[in-house]
């Protein structure tokens, strides 16, 4: 039996919105990370801006790959949307998942950056303890 007229119309209504929204979200978060992460990376690499920009770019590429890959895989709905309410709910679930993935990756990125920064700052750190005493050193 062929579906009714209105049925098809509803089903197709939300579909183009799904990837469009997610691409926009991913690009927005990616750009935010790219812009604000730069200062951080320059500090990590002791002011080496070329290296910082290069690493920043590579990180953003990896970020886009993971996110678009995830969106592509998660696009499948598995059932037909017959009402506007169901469409909004389905869209909400998918967008919510993408937001959580983006949020998780964002904090993971921050964690990695701060670890790199801390490690870099340790390189010139003083000894952790005071010596027990002093002795004369005979040069070789």
């Amino acid at each position, binding site marked *: 039996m062929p579906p009714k007229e209105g049925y098809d119309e509803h089903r197709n209504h939300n579909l183009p919105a799904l990837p469009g929204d997610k691409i926009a979200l991913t690009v927005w978060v990616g750009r935010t990370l790219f812009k604000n992460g730069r200062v951080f990376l320059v500090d990590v690499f002791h002011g080496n801006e070329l290296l910082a920009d290069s690493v920043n770019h590579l990180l953003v590429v990896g970020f886009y790959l993971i996110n678009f890959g995830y969106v592509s895989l998660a696009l499948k709905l598995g059932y037909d949307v017959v009402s506007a309410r169901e469409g909004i709910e389905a869209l909400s679930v998918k967008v919510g998942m993408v937001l959580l993935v983006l949020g998780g990756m964002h904090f993971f990125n921050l964690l990695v950056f701060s670890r790199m920064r801390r490690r870099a700052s340790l390189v010139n750190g003083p*000894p952790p303890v005071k*010596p027990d005493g002093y002795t004369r050193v005979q040069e070789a």
Partner: protein
Amino acid sequence: MTALTVLYDPTCGLCRRAHGWLAQEGKLVELVFVPCKSEEARRRFPQLDHDLTAKDLTVVGDQGEVYLGPKAWLMVLWALSQYREWSYRLASPELLPTARRVVSLISQHRFQIGRVAGMSR
């Protein structure tokens, strides 16, 4: 500080094992290994009490700073790029007493530990 001289006990398997491990770790400060009570050790540090260095691990900085036992271990950790963070953590007032106890326990029983782990010569 650019170099640390580590006076280690070459007669103990555990110490030689530790020496092997330290030699291959990435370092922020150069580590020079000299067997304790050796001619080389006496020549480098003529005023040091060399009987004391045989009891506990001893590390000497390039300006003559002497670190004994637990402090020596912390200095060795501090020299390693992967463990510098840990040296600060273990040197904190909360963890230093525990670090001291563990290090002196291992140090006292180093021959037994080496034998049990099959590291004796």
